[in-house]
């Protein structure tokens, strides 16, 4: 059914149609509307049987999901930013135990400085946690990929993170085709756990494992995630067959088959990138895009065949690995090893800074002109950084960076000295 609906509500309604049996959540912007919506559906009796547990932290949220999943319940939670970091220990545990929990990450920056706006720092920080990571471009895709996420998770007994841009998607009201419950039931069979806490058949889950088998257990986790490279496209194909639209999968190429320059990105910024590409194509520029929909497992071979014919690749990243630069581009480098493709890294949109068409046009033009070197910070205000560096040189007790720079910007905290 087509509806004009907020992204979070669309996700809440979709998740509810997947019949989770336990939902546990702790509020954090911009995830709140999703769990508020779900709590309402459970409380109103529209989602039954389902337990909604208001936990006291994200660490508890993931832990409740672990207990519930191990007891055979389809389990769901959602978080963002600090919340994702706060559950980090439990994230590794859930994947290590092979529990098919599904979680929405409403992507948001990480503090300090505290910042509620969108970028990919949070989910990127957990890229090695053993969770499958799917990034969506639109709210339609958010709906579709959540349906697929449960099926992927339960097929492989691995947890799946659906990453959707905070605010940009979660709070955007747009037209979304919501599935019918019967379609969902036909697409998503009931959860059949591989391991179960069951008094009729007692088993020990989470035992101590020493050097004699630890490597093998970890290897298997890796192997299972790599299997997702087959399972994710299969599930996407099954989805397309039933729902009649293409969504999810590993990658999505946009006008890139013959492109000399290919822009690589994840999430909602792809929409803007595609608009700019259309304009440039009209001007005769040979440019296209590659959207990464599955970041973990990393579809290395698929990325390679999608990019190897290009002259250059510009990776637009909404996260920064401090001390090295790009995260996605490190992975792209790996995929393109041995090819002649030049790879540029552009860090953009941190902490909610808009990635505008004009900035992208400039970036792509610089890339094509061979003027990009090292890591580019799109729209970086050098004067702000220089001002703070100057202060640090002049006085030892220069104070906190963030407050100083905000004062220079003149938005908050500005007052007579």
């Amino acid at each position, binding site marked *: 059914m087509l509806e004009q609906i907020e992204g979070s509500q669309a996700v809440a309604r979709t998740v509810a149609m997947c019949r989770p*049996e336990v939902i546990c959540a702790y509020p954090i912007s911009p995830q709140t509307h999703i769990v508020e919506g779900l709590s309402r559906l459970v409380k109103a009796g529209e989602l039954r049987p389902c337990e909604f547990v208001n936990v006291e932290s994200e*660490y508890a949220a993931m832990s*409740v999901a672990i207990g519930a999943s191990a007891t055979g319940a389809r389990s769901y939670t959602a978080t963002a930013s600090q919340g994702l970091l706060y559950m980090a220990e439990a994230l590794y545990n859930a994947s290590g135990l092979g529990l098919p929990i599904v979680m929405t990450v409403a992507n948001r920056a990480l503090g300090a400085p505290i910042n509620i706006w969108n970028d990919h720092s949070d989910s990127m920080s957990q890229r090695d946690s053993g969770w499958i990571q799917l990034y969506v471009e639109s709210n339609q895709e958010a709906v579709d990929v959540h349906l697929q996420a449960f099926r992927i998770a339960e097929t492989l007994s691995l947890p799946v993170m659906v990453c959707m841009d905070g605010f940009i998607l979660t709070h955007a009201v747009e037209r979304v085709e919501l599935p019918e419950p019967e379609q969902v039931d036909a697409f998503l069979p009931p959860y059949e756990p591989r391991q179960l*806490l069951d008094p009729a058949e*007692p088993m020990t*889950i*989470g035992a101590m494992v020493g050097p004699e088998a630890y490597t093998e257990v970890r290897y298997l986790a890796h192997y299972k995630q790599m299997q997702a490279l087959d399972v994710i496209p299969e599930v996407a194909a099954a989805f397309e067959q039933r729902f009649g639209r293409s969504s999810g999968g590993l990658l999505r190429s946009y006008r890139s088959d013959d492109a000399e320059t290919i822009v690589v990105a994840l999430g909602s910024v792809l929409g803007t990138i595609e608009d700019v590409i259309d304009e440039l194509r009209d001007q005769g520029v040979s440019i296209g895009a590659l959207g990464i929909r599955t970041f973990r497992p990393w579809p290395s071979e698929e990325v390679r065949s999608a990019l190897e014919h290009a002259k250059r690749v510009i990776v637009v990243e909404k996260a920064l690995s401090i001390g090295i630069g790009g995260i996605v581009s490190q992975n792209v480098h790996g995929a393109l090893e041995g090819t002649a493709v030049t790879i540029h890294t552009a860090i953009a949109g941190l902490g909610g800074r808009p990635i505008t068409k004009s900035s992208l046009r400039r970036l792509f033009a610089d890339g094509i002109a061979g003027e990009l070197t090292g890591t580019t910070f799109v729209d970086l205000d050098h004067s702000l950084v220089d001002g703070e560096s100057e202060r640090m040189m002049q006085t030892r007790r220069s104070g906190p960076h963030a407050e100083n720079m905000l004062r220079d910007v003149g938005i908050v905290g500005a007052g007579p000295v």
Partner: protein
Amino acid sequence: MTATRLKYFQTGSFAAGNRLVNPESRSVQSGAERANAITCGHRACQGCGEALGARYALDAAMRATGGDLIAANATGCLEVFSTPYPESSWQLPWIHSLFGNAAAVSTGIAAALRAKGNTHTRVVGQGGDGGTVDIGFACLSGMFERDDDVLFICYDNEAYMNTGVQRSGATPPAAFTTTTQAVGEEPGAPWGQGKSAPLIALAHEIPYVATATIADLRDLEAKVQRAMSIRGARYIHVLVTCPLGWGTPSSDSLRVARLAVETGIFPVWEGAYGDVTAVTKIRHRLPVEDYLQAQTRFRHLFKPRRRDALIERVQARADRNIRRFGLIDPVEYDPVALHVEGGS
């Protein structure tokens, strides 16, 4: 409600004398049909109070539920000594996730059971004092506050034993641990306000809170049984001795636990909905010195020189417990007790 005390055999204890009791009142552990929830072959130290306490508690819970029980365990000695795979000791469905989340994992299990309409299977969460009163405290408090249908059992050996006897929030003042060594002006653990996890549990006004020790295993069994007859969040805090961390001979585990009770150091009580409802009276009150001297973790209070001031402070804490919980009926005061009261 504690077990009915039968004074005609071994005083204040049910450790022996099952033969004298009618079959229904005999301990779970004495029955051939006991569950052996933690079966033999695990790797606990000899005389480990935690192994003993957990075995009695879980076998009692297994009996109370007809074996329809799931356990979630925090990281710690109990988890480590029982599961170097494939040698799991657990005869019931058992999960270990992390150090600090056993209560939340238990909540998740209970929620899943509820969602599935399973009203018969019950849930026990368990951990050491570190996993309960320190790193696991937020999850535990959340579980209490929501009144989730979980019995949480803390096996309190008063330090982080699994990592080599470091101080926890449950370590008593003056005790030696590897992070509160017996050096300096006030050797051993510092004198704080302490942290009574059972009283804090009680303050959540949950339907059942109890303390117990391995000195009275029949009492522990009875409390677990009682807890399992109730729905909602329940908490049992069991004092368990640790020969390694306390510096006691393995053969002394029960004796030292009994001294903790008889000196007033560890009050044994039951409570419900915010009130203490029953206390176990001290029958032969002893001075704290007897308890302290039995353990090398307090040796520095006596050697190389006696530190009377510190010993008196420990005594004052025990006296306060006795007054606060009414651990001694005035008529039952015995001469030792009077002597101690006079001296403190």
